[in-house]
Structures are given as structure tokens and as C-alpha cells.
């Protein structure tokens, strides 16, 4: 018995020695994030100027924080986008991460349940100036007047354009920039001219996830909304039907590439198989790098705000935000270490803005460096036109329900009217059950 125990102990001790263990005296901070896995390329990078793309920059931020001090060690846990499943499972198991990136629109769901640490009283002590946050970004992390996170960016949908194709269709200005249409008539006229000249679709978008584009088109109409005054979903409206019919019409007339998912829609654009592509701020840096690729089909890239086809500009917008899911009564030492890392992330917000996302600190937005980032001025009107999803609990299901019903209308399984009526019923049911 004792011999066996001794053998087991030796084996276990050897195992422990072989396991990578962080320095005993450094405080550990568990950092959960999505944005992909890129340890192969950026696992050892600590120089922020060498990093690019969402994954590269976020990975390098964590690396450089670990490299610049030895009191706190950040352990990165990469999860699948949008990270909600992993967060919920960890919360249920009582092992939430110390800090995590979450979409700002999800904050009310967690804050209302007491799962997030309120930050209003602790930020100043940690050297984070909440007054420096832009109003639009701050709105994402507030709930009932309290701050429950620090925004990382304001992101949203833009119009990515292949300028060479536009030039071939005669749709460029004298300075070579694209002649951006404004309003339905101009937009359709451009689309027709483009198709006639090039034989390619004018626009691309992933047709299995149309809720964001549909929502933007709703808000472009006078009085258009998806939320009633009482906070309930308001989907089955005239503006909603107009927006959906417009998307179907684009498809029917061959102006958008049909039946494509996110990856395919991106590839089609980068292969030069359409004139433009609706995608997020998050790909600006990536597409800009593609232009430098001598073998790439995209040679002349321009990015503009989401197309305005109705009365006023509007674009779907979201925000990535840092949250601290340590509840109402966090361990002070853990919170202190986490806030130190949070301050580092916030201080380096300008690095994250290189991805193409809009910065969230006024000091960064007004800085010269920020405004000289590639293409930044081309979509300068994105922030003023940004529309954020409703701050209601039913918005948790908004995108998935709407994507599904809009898709049903696009592939002809339901009439547009039926699809919107079904979406309304499903979201109402969800809202009432909450």
C-alpha cells in the first residue's frame, strides 16, 4: 500500500514538474477572447508595430503586457465567436474568466443578472478615464446608469469597393475615387450600369445573415425602427417590408451574389468577382493588406459607409467591450490585477483601431495618427450613422431569429410578409417569456 502510494506520488510529482507552471509570485489573470487563434504567427510577438489583423493585434497586446512587467501574468483562453456559450458554461460552473471580450449589446443580459462587476467606482483608481470614452461607445457598456465594461471599439458594416471594376463601368470621379450613389434611384442606376458594363454583380453580402443589413435599411427610412416605444420588438412594419423587398429585388435582378455564406462572400470580393461587398470595419486592415499581394485580384481598394438607399444614412453597428465577470463582490486582489491589464488594453486602444474599427477614446479619435490610418477618412461618416441594436433582453435572439426568417424569404420558403410576421411572433414570445 505504502509502496504503491510512494510510486504514485513520484509519478505525480514528475508530471507536475513537466507541466508549464507560471511563476509563483505573479498574479494570474484569465483572459478569454474570440478573434481567432494565431499563436503560430504571433505567439511570441511583443512588438505591437509588427502585429496586424484582429487576432494578431489582440494576441500581441497580451504578449507585450506579459513581457513588460512580471507582477501579473495573463493567460489567454481563445474561444469560438461570439464566446457566449463558453462564458455561460463557465459562469454556470463557477469558473468565469477574470476578463473577457464580449459584444456590447449582450451586456444588459449579464449585468441585469448581477454577473458583471460594476466598474464606475473602480476605474479612476485604476487610472482609466471613463470620461474619455466617446458617447456612442459608452452607450454600449452602460446599464441602468452604471458602467459594466470598457469598450474596445465601435464596429459596423461598411461598403468595400473594387475601384478597378467601378472604373471599368465608368463609375468613378475625376480623381479616380468611386462615384458613390445616394438614394434608391442613383443606387439602382449604378447597379444597372455596373452589370451592363462588367457582367458582374454590383454588390456582395452573405445572404444567410442579412439581419444587420436589413436593420440598417429599416433605420434609413423616416421613422423606421425595430423597437416599439414600450421596448417590445417591432419587426412587422412597412419599413421592414420595404427593406426586405429591396434585398429580394437586388437578388432577383442579379445585383447581389446569391446563396453565399460569410467566407464565400469575402472570397468572391477578393477574387474580383463583384463590384463591392458589405462587410465590417474589421476587414479594412486585412483587405488593405490584400492589395499589396501581387497575386491578389483586388488591386484598388476603397471603403465607404454603408450604402444609403432611403432617406438618411444608417449602418448597423456594434461594439466589442471588455467585461469583468467577477460578479458584484469580486476578490480585491484579482480585481486589481485585472484592472491593471484592462488599463493597458485601454491605453493601447489606438493599436486596435488599426484593424479598421473605430476607436472609443476621444483622445484617440482626435489624434493625428488615428486619422492618418489607411482609408479612415473614406468612412468617416460611419460613426454618426451608426445604429445600435435595441438594449433589450430580446435582442439576444434578434440576429438569429431575423437571419433565419429573412433567409426563408430570400430562398422563397416564405413570403416577405409571412417571414416578418413570424419573426415578430417569435421575438414577442421571447420578450414576453423573459
Amino acid at each position, binding site marked *: 500500500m505504502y509502496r504503491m*502510494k510512494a510510486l*504514485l*506520488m513520484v509519478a*505525480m*510529482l514528475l*508530471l*507536475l514538474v513537466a507541466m508549464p*507552471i507560471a511563476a509563483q509570485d505573479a*498574479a*494570474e*489573470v*484569465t483572459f478569454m477572447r474570440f478573434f481567432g487563434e494565431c499563436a503560430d504567427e504571433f505567439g511570441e510577438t511583443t512588438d505591437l508595430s509588427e502585429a496586424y489583423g484582429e487576432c494578431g493585434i489582440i494576441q500581441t497586446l497580451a504578449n507585450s503586457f506579459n513581457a513588460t512587467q512580471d507582477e501579473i501574468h495573463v*493567460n489567454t483562453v481563445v474561444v469560438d465567436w461570439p464566446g*457566449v*456559450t463558453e462564458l*455561460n*458554461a463557465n*459562469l*454556470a460552473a463557477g*469558473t468565469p474568466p*477574470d476578463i473577457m471580450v464580449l459584444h456590447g449589446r449582450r451586456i444588459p*443580459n449579464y449585468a441585469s*443578472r*448581477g*454577473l458583471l462587476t460594476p466598474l464606475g467606482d473602480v476605474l479612476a483608481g485604476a487610472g482609466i478615464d471613463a470620461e474619455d470614452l466617446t458617447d456612442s461607445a459608452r452607450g454600449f457598456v452602460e446599464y441602468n446608469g452604471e458602467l459594466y465594461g470598457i469598450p474596445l471599439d465601435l464596429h459596423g458594416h461598411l461598403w468595400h469597393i473594387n475601384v478597378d471594376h467601378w472604373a471599368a463601368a465608368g463609375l468613378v470621379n475625376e480623381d479616380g475615387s468611386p462615384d458613390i450613389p445616394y438614394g434608391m434611384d442613383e443606387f439602382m442606376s449604378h447597379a444597372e450600369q455596373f452589370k451592363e458594363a462588367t457582367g458582374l454583380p454590383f454588390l456582395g453580402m452573405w*445572404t*444567410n445573415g442579412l439581419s444587420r443589413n436589413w436593420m440598417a435599411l429599416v433605420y434609413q427610412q423616416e421613422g423606421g425602427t425595430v423597437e416599439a416605444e414600450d421596448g417590445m420588438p417591432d419587426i412587422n412594419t412597412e419599413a421592414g417590408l420595404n427593406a426586405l423587398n429591396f434585398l429580394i429585388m437586388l437578388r432577383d435582378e442579379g445585383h447581389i451574389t*446569391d*446563396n*453565399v*455564406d460569410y*467566407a*464565400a462572400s469575402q*472570397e*468572391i470580393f477578393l477574387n474580383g468577382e463583384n463590384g463591392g461587398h458589405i462587410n465590417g470595419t474589421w476587414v479594412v486592415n486585412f483587405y488593405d493588406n490584400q492589395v499589396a499581394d501581387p497575386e491578389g485580384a483586388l488591386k484598388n481598394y476603397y471603403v465607404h459607409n454603408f450604402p444609403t438607399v432611403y432617406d438618411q444614412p444608417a449602418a448597423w453597428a456594434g461594439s466589442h467591450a471588455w467585461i469583468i465577470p467577477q460578479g458584484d463582490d469580486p*476578490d480585491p*486582489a*484579482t480585481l486589481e*490585477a485585472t484592472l491593471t491589464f484592462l488599463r493597458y488594453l485601454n491605453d493601447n486602444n489606438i493599436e486596435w483601431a488599426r484593424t479598421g474599427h473605430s476607436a472609443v477614446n476621444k483622445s484617440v479619435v482626435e489624434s493625428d495618427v488615428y486619422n492618418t490610418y489607411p482609408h479612415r477618412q473614406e468612412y468617416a461618416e460611419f460613426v454618426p450613422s451608426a445604429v445600435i441594436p435595441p438594449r433589450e433582453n430580446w435582442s*439576444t*435572439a434578434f440576429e*438569429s431569429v431575423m*437571419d*433565419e*426568417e429573412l*433567409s*426563408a424569404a430570400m*430562398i422563397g*420558403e*416564405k413570403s416577405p410578409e409571412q417571414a416578418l410576421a*413570424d419573426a415578430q*411572433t*417569435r421575438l414577442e*414570445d*421571447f420578450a414576453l*417569456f423573459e
Partner: protein
Amino acid sequence: MMTAFSVERMVNSLFGLLEAFNPIAEPYRRFHEKLPPKMQQTVTAFMFILPFGVLYAIFTILPIFQTFYISLHKWEIMGTNIRYIGLKNFERLLTRDTQFHQAFEQTILFVALTIPIIFVGLFFALMLNRPIKGIGIFRTIFYLPNIIAVTVIGLIWSRVFASSGRGLINAFLENFDAGPIPFLDQGDLATLVVAFTTLWWTVGFSMLIFLAGLQDISQALYDAAEVDGANRRQQFRHITIPGLRRPFAFLCILQVIASFQIFGQVDVMTGGGPAGNTRTIVYNIFETSFLYFQVGYGTAMAVIMFAVLLVISLFQLALFRDQGVGS
């Protein structure tokens, strides 16, 4: 703050747990010696299965009862906002939730589409039950997909069937100016693709069970039939098929249960789309519980599925019992 996992502490705890039984070891030995010999054997047998029984009760029986309990509550995944609501989850589920109804219909369709796996498995088993040189290699190849993780299977086939020119099949069709076929973006096609993927992935298991069944049939029966002048078809009908009743019954029950529980392929390949056309009950449970937080409601769906599977399994067992299987 994450604390380092200590294996040493765990081992010590385990030994500590065993040592905790020391005080009762001697009294138990005295009690055991006083029992009649026959009783001693019975008690010893029970003591051996007791650890398993306790663990089985904790990790299998208890969760089943817990599932029923949670289904009667509004219960969020993080353990927040727990409130008893009686049968309201079931009322919503059965009367208003069109998404669940669609998922239920979709699951039935998947069950119907994947039942042929059994017959394909039988066909492969018959082909591979021959004394050919190197037959083991073929058996391994046919069984191989079954040991691959569902995520890998899903990724492979979603690349093959991708709707645009990125997909292997559509890229091939492009060479002939055909396609692209929207395999994963049209409801019916996506359903067929997921069913086909399931077949490819799991047919090896059916094949293996039938192969074992075929090798259980005595060669003497075939020899006798041959002497009596029975041809191959007659031998198959009167010897092979009756000999495979048990594996057939076993696979029927397992296949129906597995098809009802289809999840991984859907999650990786279609995410329940397009337009909810491939959303199955288990995927619906996952969405409701983990993405929408409503674990009480999701659990009610699981209870419904449990009831349906129980009825189907009992029906199948009764049916096979009537046919002499298991007697």
C-alpha cells in the same frame, strides 16, 4: 484568479478517502462473519457493485430526475432567476413554439433519412464477410470514418459541399460551366447533405455489428443448406436474415436514438440553417439553453424528446420480441 490544479492534493484526498473507511472495516468484517454462508456471498456481491451503483445513481439517475425538476422551472443557465412555473414551459412548447415544432418535424425527417444506414451497413458487412486476402484492410478502411470526431467530419464535408466555387464539387462543376449548386443554402439540399454526412460517418458501426452477427452464424447451417440444394438467395433469406435479427434489432434502436440526437453535424455544417431547415431538437435545446439562457425551457424540450424516444424504443422492443428476438 485561477489556482493551479494540484494532482498531489487530489491523490492525497483519494487515499484519505480510502482511509476514512478504516474505522468501519473491522465492525463490517465481524458483521459479515456472523452471516450465513449463502448470505455472505450475496452481501459480498452487493458490496462489489456498490461503488458503481453509487456513481451510477449520482451521475446518471439523479440527472434524469433533475431534468424533470428543472423543466418545471424558469431556470437560467448561469443558475440565476430560478422560479417554479409548473407546466408553463410545456404549455409554451406544445402550443406556441413553432420553432420547436419545425425542429421536431426536421428531426423525424433526419431519422427517416438515416435509417437506410442500417441497410448500407448490412450491404458492406456482406461484402466484407468473405475470405479474401487483405480483407482486414478493407474492414479497417470502411470503419475508419466512425473513429473521426464529428467536428472534423463536419468540416470536411462542408468544404466538399460548400455552395460557391469554394466547394470541391462546385469547383469541379465549374470546369464544365455548370453549377454552382447551393448545397448548404437550400433547405432540402442541406438536409440531404447532413443526412449523407451522417451516413458516411456512422455506417462503419452498423457494418461492424452486422459483421460480428454474420460471423456468429454457424457455417454448418450453410453447408447443410448447400447439401439440400439451397441457392445463395435462399441461404441469405432463410439463414442469414434470421441469424441477423438480434444485431438488426440492436441497430434499429440505437440508430433511431442516435438520429434523434443528431447535433454535431448540424452545428458544424449548417448552424441549423438555411432558414432553420436543418435545426433538430437537440440543436434547438442547445440554442435555447446556452445561447438564450433558458435552460428550464430547453430542459422541457429534452423531457419531450425523452418521452418520445422511450415510447419508440419500447415499441421497437415489443415488435422485435413478437418476432422472437430476445426470447
